[in-house]
């Protein structure tokens, strides 16, 4: 990639959220990735943000759902089907 298409730290940082969510075009994803491979400062920040997102999602998914819920719904659906 030429210097003309290389992203600055500021341009890379502006794309932080979209990059972590894989919501950039393939070309932009590649440009950000290339910057991160050569800029330890930005790479540290991106790694940190990725860890935060992963940890928050992991913590939230561990919340238990009542084991009875699926049974309750199945019973309610059966009832509606019988009525209809």
């Amino acid at each position, binding site marked *: 990639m030429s210097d003309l298409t290389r992203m600055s730290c500021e341009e890379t940082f502006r794309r932080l*959220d979209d990059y972590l969510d894989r919501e950039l075009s393939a070309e932009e994803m590649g440009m950000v990735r290339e910057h991160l491979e050569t800029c330890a400062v930005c790479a540290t920040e991106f790694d*940190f*943000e990725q860890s935060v997102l992963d940890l*928050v999602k992991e913590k939230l998914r561990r919340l238990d759902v009542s084991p009875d*819920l699926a049974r309750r719904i199945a019973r309610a659906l059966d009832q509606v089907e019988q009525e209809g």
Partner: protein
Amino acid sequence: MAYGLLGDRVEAEDAVQEAALLAFRNFSSFEPGTNFKAWFFRILTNWCFGRYRQRKRRPDTVEFDEVPAAYLFRQTRDAGLHRPGADPAADVIGKLEGEKIHAAIQRLPEEFRPVAVLYFLEDLSYEEIAATLSVPVGTVRSRLHRGRRLLQKELWTLALEAGIVAGPAGGTS
């Protein structure tokens, strides 16, 4: 997701049941080949919003000030947590209880909460969130980015309150 929007387990389970019944009764309105998950989530989200509006008491929400990007990164760095070999994100978020993080999402302003719930709890893409909430993808993007920063500020406050990190002398940030 219902728990994320309503913040009450019993109400959330009722919401899922009611949404399942609604979906069953109105299944003819589902267009085969389209995203079933988004269709069902739209029903569930609408039911939750309706329930939420009926409530007299609503949860306290955080002040809506713009929070700078990378808020948590800067706070952890300034607190000296970025030592060589350390994992500052895990040192803070890893020690917070899931229920507390959940409550922090509940406190996000109404504008950001549904987007945050669909993103964090259901792992939906921007496009799927947009389809579920019937808003443009650009709206999802900006609400999610701003909501995420607000959440980072809340998480930092929780970490200070729980004593996971030491606050600056003279009070919390």
